């Protein structure tokens, strides 16, 4: 039996359908990230699980029990807001023990649980501090501690790391995950940061315009994206348009702009079909020699960027198309300069092929 189950959950705000028949099951002990761009319906989904919003249609089950109409405090789930919402006039200790005190636990138990949890989030030494005396990262941990102290089995986290500095956010990701796992809790974590979701989650749910676009383990989402949108939103890629020119047993040939032909190992296409081929930047290598078994295209280095320990080349191909390649600095045998003539190579097995989208390619991949 799933711990949380959503069946055909729909929510409308006026004319906007924020959630459109969502079906999702979350198992006990799972860490699930809901990932999507702004306006995808992520927060609405989380609030419906929390009981802060009622769905217009569909049912929500927690521990097998239908909870439509059940107030938030009786759902065994605690919702953590983007803003930490700590009580400013209470110390760290008072904030964390608030839930247990309200629930009228006996003094010993309150003390034991509170100090245990403060120890866990490494804030035992700051128990007498007030929220404003703490850094953002510490306040975030206090909020988390308070959530855990409430005794709820389900943590609903709405962009829990969103208000923190980029560097600190990376540090806290793994801490958050181990905390949830160590306590045997179940977490539903909403984020727009694909890197965060991939690193932290057991399973990722990609939401787009109120619908689930794909659900899978981080590895599945990354290596078997089912749509152009998912490929672009998670990991990113080069996208080129073309027409299927040949269909064979081991794959197909796609003709790109300017008559350039590339081999792709995906089958099930028909000759003449207009398609989009996606290749991850990190699957493209740049060199001076052709690579056997790969697609090799001549080009010229257009720009060289240095991104978080990787080198990213943008190469202008002979047909005018641009292809980016991203290589870990430690794996780059040598670096090329702007203007140098190079060969870009990528294996047929690493090409994703999608039917050309009706609304155009840009709509699927544009973020701005």
């Amino acid at each position: 039996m799933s711990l949380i189950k959503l069946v055909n959950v729909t929510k409308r705000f006026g004319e906007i359908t924020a959630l459109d028949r969502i079906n999702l099951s979350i198992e006990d002990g799972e860490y699930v990230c809901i990932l999507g761009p702004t306006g995808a319906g992520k927060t609405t989904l989380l609030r419906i699980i929390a009981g802060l919003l009622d769905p217009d249609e569909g049912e929500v089950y927690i521990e097998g029990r239908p909870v439509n109409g059940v107030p938030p405090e009786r759902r065994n789930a605690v919702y953590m807001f983007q803003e930490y919402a700590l009580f400013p006039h209470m110390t760290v200790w008072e904030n964390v023990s608030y839930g247990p005190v309200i629930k009228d636990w006996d003094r010993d138990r309150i003390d034991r649980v509170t100090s245990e949890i403060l120890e866990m989030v490494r804030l035992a030494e700051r128990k007498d501090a007030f929220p404003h005396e703490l850094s953002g990262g510490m306040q975030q941990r206090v909020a988390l501690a308070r959530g855990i102290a409430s005794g709820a089995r389900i943590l609903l986290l709405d962009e829990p790391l969103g208000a923190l500095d980029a560097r600190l956010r990376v540090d806290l990701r793994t801490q958050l995950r181990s905390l949830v796992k160590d306590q045997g809790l179940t977490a539903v974590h909403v984020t727009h940061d694909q890197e965060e979701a991939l690193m932290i989650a057991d399973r990722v749910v990609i939401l787009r315009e109120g619908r689930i676009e794909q659900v899978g383990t981080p590895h599945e989402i990354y290596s078997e994206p089912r749509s152009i949108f998912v490929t672009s939103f998670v990991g990113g890629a080069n996208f080129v348009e073309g027409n299927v020119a040949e269909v064979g047993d081991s794959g197909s040939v796609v003709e790109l702009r300017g008559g350039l032909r590339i081999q792709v190992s995906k089958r099930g296409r028909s000759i003449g079909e207009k398609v989009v081929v996606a290749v991850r930047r990190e699957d493209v290598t740049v060199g001076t020699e052709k690579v056997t078994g790969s697609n090799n295209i001549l080009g010229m280095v257009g720009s060289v960027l240095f991104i978080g320990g990787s080198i990213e080349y943008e190469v202008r191909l002979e047909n005018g198309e641009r292809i980016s390649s991203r290589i870990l600095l430690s794996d780059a045998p040598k670096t090329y300069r702007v203007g140098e003539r190079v060969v870009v190579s990528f294996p047929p097995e690493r090409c994703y092929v999608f039917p050309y989208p009706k609304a155009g390619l840009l709509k699927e991949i544009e973020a701005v």
Partner: protein
Amino acid sequence: MPEVRLVNVTKRYGKIVANDHINLTIKDGEYVSVIGPSGCGKTTLIKSIAGIIKPDEGEIYIDGRLVNDLPIEERGVGYVFQNIALFPHMTVWDNIVYGPKVRCLPPEETRALALEMLEMIKLSARSDAYPSELSGGTQQKTAVARALISRARLLLLDEPLGALDVKVRAELRYELRRLVKDLKLTALHVTHDQEEAMSISDRVVVMKKGRIVEAGTPINLYVRPKNIFTANFVGEANFLRGVVTQVNKDRSIVEIRGGSKLVTKNTDGGVGDPVVIAFRPEFASIVRKKRLNRLSGKIVDVLYSGSIVRLKVELANGDRVVVKKALSFERPTFNVGDKVTVNIPPKDILVYPYPEEGLDRALALE
């Protein structure tokens, strides 16, 4: 020729020294980013240059001219905030022409300028839209156009992408750089996002507790950070404590806790000095062959994120290090519990004197 020069710039808030004797020169046409954790003083610094904050000590020169007593509008700077500060009841066009109108520029000149700005940010088609009808990224581009219509040659960007989604942020940052380079502006960009700074800047300034820790090109800061704080703040790094046991001309030996010895390219210190060695997770590898600098351990966690796998390895002495690898197509599989050997090439080991304040404090982000 907007060159910016700061000489001993100091700003205090009560007992807190937000900027402590800052000396920095930004060259004409340079794109410089300032990074550092919350409270490091980076915002105070950019606001001092803008003229929003007055330093207690020191001098600020723009174009060789002392500007300490000049108000913001006479400094020739364009300033863009994190919180997109467009007038909500005005269209894109009206927002952009607001400055020239207030300065009573002739209407024809204002119009020409505005058209040029809209062209620049590729928004000519949306000049009649209201901010609420635009995405966050487009709103911020409008704010940049509004800042530049005054013909400012120095662009001050205060967390300009901070309020945007990660993906939008990543795309807009390149547009910002292109704009600055195309228009031959000088830019100072404050951000808490080190990846953003590293990918678009000519030079990056790292600040901590009101001081400049280090400044350099992105690649130098990444590969050869001079300061241990930089090594941690800019990119990922592993840190191991040890003692120098041998110093030769171009190699030294550091014994880490537990007795394992590592050969390093060189170190400042002498025999017996307590040190911290650091290395980037991707420069280490899991090896089978016999090589220099092998540390045996056990995999305790395997984290995949896209094309990258991070292996957390517990060494024989109990220390934990992370090894980061690109997933190749025919990937070897790593499992928790596997016994492995970690290799770190001598040239990729950074050696720092053991910090007086202790390692944790030297690396602290908050």
